[in-house]
């Protein structure tokens, strides 16, 4: 029950952006809430770069682990609605250590419960920059819980524009282009008329325009398959051997989700 209530702090019933909050992590949590560790002080996160919520700018926080969540809490305090999009699983011997993320999400109980974020607050989507690489080698004995973001995880550009969101800032530590999976989302938004900017929160800089390069397999019907195959392939231990599709080889291929 505790974690259902925690989920509803991050995904308040009736909220404009609530339907997109990924419930995956919250639904798996069973640990004693008292066992969560202090993940760090969200008030210390640098968010001077963030536009005023009145500017109707969406933010995508693509920082490592707890940093992403703590930055989201700082932005919530400023008037943004944090939208966690962690689409990953907990388990023993994981490739991606999610404990810091979970500890930081738990901090929402203390922070979000005291905030009155307006219904029309712009969204701050929260993802983990470690998602596709993990923290350790995905050797066969380990639980492979790496993940990718897909366009269907986010609102469409049409939805964003219809709610006055005409600009999005990617907060990340990368130089230049975003991660490829995120580029598939941002390029769609950009083509639909949303202005994309980027910023490195660790530098004292203002968001700068970002022309998102067209990623490979952009808008191809097999993209979801190909993106997840990248993880599945490694999950299966078959490093380096591409899973073929019918158009490319003498094989059966696989297209999309299961049954």
């Amino acid at each position, binding site marked *: 029950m505790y974690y259902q209530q925690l989920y509803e702090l991050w995904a308040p019933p009736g909220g404009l952006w609530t339907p997109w909050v990924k419930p995956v992590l919250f639904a798996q949590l069973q640990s004693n809430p008292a066992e969560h560790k202090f993940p760090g002080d969200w008030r210390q996160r640098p968010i001077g770069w963030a536009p005023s919520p009145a500017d109707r700018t969406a933010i995508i926080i693509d920082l490592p682990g707890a940093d992403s969540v703590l930055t989201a809490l700082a932005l919530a305090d400023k008037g943004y609605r944090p939208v966690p999009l962690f689409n990953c*699983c907990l388990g023993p*011997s994981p490739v991606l250590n999610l404990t810091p993320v979970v500890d930081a999400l738990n901090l929402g109980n203390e922070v979000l419960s005291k905030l009155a974020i307006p219904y029309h607050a712009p969204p701050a989507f929260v993802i983990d920059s470690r998602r596709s690489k993990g923290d350790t080698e995905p050797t066969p004995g380990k639980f492979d819980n790496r993940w990718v973001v897909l366009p269907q995880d986010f609102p469409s550009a049409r939805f964003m524009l219809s709610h006055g969101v005409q600009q999005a800032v990617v907060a990340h530590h990368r130089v230049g282009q975003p991660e490829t999976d995120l580029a598939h989302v941002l390029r769609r938004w950009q083509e639909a008329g949303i202005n994309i900017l980027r910023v490195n929160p660790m530098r004292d800089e203002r968001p700068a325009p970002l022309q998102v390069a067209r990623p490979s397999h952009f808008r191809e019907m097999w993209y979801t398959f190909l993106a997840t195959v990248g993880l599945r392939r490694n999950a299966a231990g078959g490093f380096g051997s591409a899973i073929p599709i019918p*158009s490319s080889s003498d*094989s*059966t291929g*696989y*297209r999309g*989700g*299961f*049954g």
Partner: protein
Amino acid sequence: MCGDVPDMDGAVVETGGIHFGAPLRDDAHAGVRRRAIFDCCKWDPRVEDVEVLSPVPLLLSREAWRHLAGLAEALARETIAAERELLIRPDLHRHLGLGGSIRRALRAAAEGPPAEMARVMRFDFHFTSDGWRISEVNSDVPGGFVEASGYAGLVAEAAASGTLPADPAEALASAVAAATGPGATIGLVHATAYTDDRQVMLFLARRMERHGLRPMLIGPDQLRWTNARAEIDSDWHRGPVQGLVRFFPAEWLPNLPRSSGWRHHFAGSRTPLCNPATALLTQSKRFPLVWDRLKTDIDTWRQLLPQTHDPREVRWNGQDHWVLKPALGRVGDGILLAGVTPDRQRRRIARDARWHPRYWVAQRRFDSIPLAAGDEHLHVCLGVFTVDGRAAGVYGRASASPLIDHLARDVAVLVEEREPSPTAHVRPRNVLPATV
């Protein structure tokens, strides 16, 4: 919202005892959604701008459910029989759109097929102008347990207008327990990095625990084989398993390292498998292309599946009445449906089918009849599960488009508790009689 609907000519078409019920109240649906997430592992209730869980249940008359159940059981019998015959007919495997490594593994299966347990399939029924038709069988790794057992069960509680026709997760867990005995360790094999699959496995694991089983969630590379018996080799568990439930497509198995012993899924496993990878023989959309060379009686299939051809046998290009499907496609992906598939995808599919026709089929398009659901009309697909040949529940999906794909909504399918009205339970025209 109940009753018959006008067809394209304005004539009334019998809806065969199926109609949408009253929607759940907003607060009730919000509660069901929350419980689906936390109690039933429904972790993907949103896809882009689409709220996947429909608040409107689909109601079947009891006779309609018996009718569909009978058809599914007949199909399951024929599918199993055809698979057995195909196993010893390797000369036909090359017509099924299967790759070389899979065909080699299947040849070994003719000598020593793997041990099986709890055979599960899902037949996808569509309501058409010609009555019920099927689009495919998911005979390898059918999904939809979370929705057909978990979500639909919650809607049944909240709506009080019907009951679950059957509970496929319960049927599967029960069949596995019966096959392996109490306390058995069951390996639930899936791609662990993919939450869409993990949620299905975790949901089934919880059901299995209720039956006294010991489910272990593992990746396909975390198996080792000794004397054709499977053992788990992971950082968190090592030891033998008494059964394997796989949710990892069989056509992916050849991509695993040799050390995973993936060939045992096709041949020789002494550990009972649910499902054996030999299911690919009927999972292929090209299965109908070998019917005429089989001795097996597949009359139900012939009557319910639209005419299916190798793309080289018919003039499908530019013809609206043919649908192109990949031999091993799933969830509506990669399907060319004129007027529905976007132009860019249509060109890509058409090119693929021309260049690699042996991995495609051309199938006669059926005329799906949408049913009234409030102020919209929705096409429905009823995925009827069978477990060990017995009908075991329904996974309902609905879409404003005739193509049921990943953007379709999940619909709770319930059997009406009240007696059907004289007009509500009429059988659609041109369909087979119920066999139960």
